[in-house]
């Protein structure tokens, strides 16, 4: 019931918003976002106990892993929805609000279905729903970004379809035309008997395909453009949760491959792509010139770290990766939303144009500083803990050399981010007097997100450890 409600709310909201008169749009948008966030968190809490929620004859299914992603999508979407009205002209709320909620719907569907075919349709749907949002400002640059986004992600996702077809082929070949042959739960059940070579081939297509959506190098080329050109709430959604949905899809198939072909195959691929993503991101982050692109490349870096965690495996690697997804989503969505405010005040996304942020916008500057420190993995924020878990898992798994290379890349990115942060926060302000854009109450959601990050970094709330362990069980 709650699962159906979760999917119906954003879908119905999008439908109503597409027809609603402009003056009611903002309120309707707020109600839809609030209900979505509440339902998502409720569902996440429901599956934090050892139960699985299903609907529509098992087509929709929420286990611990789905619940984790669902809660995250709800929170990040809520955060982004609060800032969205700043970017939408009151007279023309279309098509922004309807597409925003449609985008959220497709992501929720992707993580809450048991059918890998529906998963594919939903992930392709995320591209189609968000493409217009990327091009919302309709400038030359945003046109280019949305074109690249649409083309690269469509090709990528089509490759993932080949992988899905090959999985289906392997299943049907062994067991005949069963009614639920494309269900993930049945794939996992029959995985030991599936032909290893076909499943390996399928997984290569899956990783390249969904890895494109996840922003893994070398398929990441759409990401910096789309993230930097989209309006801030959309960037926050893309970087915070869309990339995580891509990782989620890879992880589901990884579980099948691990059973069918042994754990080493997926491990090698994930470690290789993870390191490559971190290296490419570190190379760019060393001398960033545009702070939105800097945040985008940092997402490539963190998705690389998550892949390392999944590749290292074991209890620490898997739980670390899952925790890191959430930590990164919270920190990065706050950063993109704050970056939108900085851009509105300074009228530029060039790091060179932003000087004296702490003097010009004291409150915004402090939130930006705190979130950047969190992103860089400074204690007491949660990213420090999840990174320690991931790299610790690397040493534990006897893959110390991989972990060391990863750490070196992490430090390189740290240095570049620190330099950019310093340039932006201090220096002579281009405007004489403070122009604070962030009131006390609009700052509260940001503070709440940062508080959550401190919680995952300092004192784990009761039940978090058990939930993470149950997610690791799903993945094994």
């Amino acid at each position: 019931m709650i699962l159906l409600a979760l999917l119906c709310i954003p879908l119905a909201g999008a439908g109503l918003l597409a027809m609603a008169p402009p003056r009611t749009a903002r309120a309707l948008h707020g109600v839809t976002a609030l209900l979505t966030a509440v339902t998502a968190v409720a569902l996440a809490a429901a599956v934090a106990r050892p139960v699985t929620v299903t609907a529509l004859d098992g087509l929709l299914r929420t286990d611990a892993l789905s619940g984790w992603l669902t809660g995250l999508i709800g929170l990040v979407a809520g955060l982004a929805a609060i800032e969205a009205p700043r970017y939408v002209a009151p007279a023309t709320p279309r098509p922004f609000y309807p597409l925003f909620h449609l985008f959220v719907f497709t992501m929720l569907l992707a993580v809450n279905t048991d059918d890998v075919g529906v998963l594919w349709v939903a992930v392709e749907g995320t591209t189609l729903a968000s493409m217009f949002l990327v091009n919302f400002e309709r400038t030359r640059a945003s046109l280019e970004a949305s074109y690249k986004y649409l083309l690269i992600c469509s090709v990528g996702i089509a490759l993932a379809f080949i992988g899905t077809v090959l999985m289906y082929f392997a299943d049907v070949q062994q067991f005949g035309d069963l009614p639920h042959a494309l269900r993930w739960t049945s794939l996992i059940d029959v995985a030991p008997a599936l032909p290893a070579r076909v499943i390996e081939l399928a997984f290569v297509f899956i990783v390249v395909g969904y890895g494109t959506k996840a922003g893994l190098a070398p398929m990441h080329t759409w990401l910096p453009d789309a993230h930097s050109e989209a309006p801030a709430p959309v960037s926050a959604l893309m970087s915070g949760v869309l990339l995580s949905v891509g990782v989620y899809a890879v992880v589901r198939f990884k579980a099948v491959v691990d059973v069918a072909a042994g754990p080493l195959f997926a491990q090698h691929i994930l470690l290789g792509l993870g390191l490559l993503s971190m290296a490419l991101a570190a190379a760019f982050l060393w001398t960033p010139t545009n702070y939105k692109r800097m945040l985008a490349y940092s997402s490539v870096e963190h998705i690389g770290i998550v892949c390392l965690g999944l590749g290292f495996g074991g209890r620490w690697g898997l739980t670390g990766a899952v925790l890191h997804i959430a930590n990164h989503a919270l920190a990065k969505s706050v950063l993109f939303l704050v970056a939108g405010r900085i851009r509105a005040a300074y009228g530029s996304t060039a790091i060179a144009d932003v000087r004296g942020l702490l003097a010009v916008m004291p409150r915004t500057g402090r939130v930006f500083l705190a979130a950047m420190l969190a992103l860089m993995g400074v204690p007491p924020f949660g990213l420090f803990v999840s990174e320690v878990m991931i790299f610790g898992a690397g040493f534990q798994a006897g893959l110390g050399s991989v972990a060391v290379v990863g750490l070196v890349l992490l430090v390189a990115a740290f240095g570049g981010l620190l330099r950019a942060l310093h340039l932006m926060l201090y220096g002579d302000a281009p405007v004489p007097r403070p122009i604070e854009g962030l009131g006390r109450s609009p700052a509260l959601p940001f503070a709440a997100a940062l508080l959550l990050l401190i919680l995952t970094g300092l004192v784990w709330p009761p039940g978090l450890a058990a939930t993470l362990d149950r997610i690791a069980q799903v993945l094994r």
Partner: protein
Amino acid sequence: MTAATNLLAFLGLVATLVVVWRQSWRGRLASFVAQSVMLAALAAVIGLLARRPALLLVAVLVVVFKAWLIPRILARIAAGMPRRSGGPGRSVGVSVLLAGALVVAAYAVLLPVTRDASLPTAGAVPLAFAMALIGLYLCVTGRDALGHILGFLVFENGIFGLALLATYGLPGLIEAGVFLDVLVLVLLMEGVVVQMRREHDSVEVDRLRELRG
């Protein structure tokens, strides 16, 4: 059954190669339509011989969507285009040669699949995969937006053929989702092209060079 599906898949591959070979936009579009018709025939033949009535419906959908509706949208997008355009940025000879190499690669990559396959249609699976690879090649090397879209559609057709030959098609819900996806994608592309033309007076992707780094 095997002979019929092999022949149809082979004809589909020939149509795909013609897309690579032709230079004029109308010729390439016509070859794409021919490829789609071959795939529709393939679906119909498998539907009849393997007694899968649902595949007959799929065949009708392929004809309606890919041989009629989408080509019409593409023609609308292409109205006012220069007559010769959009091919891969190489000479025709090199492109056709590369496409031939992709056919060989398709057989090599799919060895684990064809070795295990027991369906009578399995022999033609690499042919469909070759169509997909050639489409991907067209899509990646296309010089303008139309070249990209056409390449993508050829690619998508190849994947459809692959699913058809390897598994007799995916469950109906998924197939419906795929059709819808392709249609929405083409419509979105039309929107992009319209805006591109207004901004740049051209659909050549070389003009898109604002974003770097």
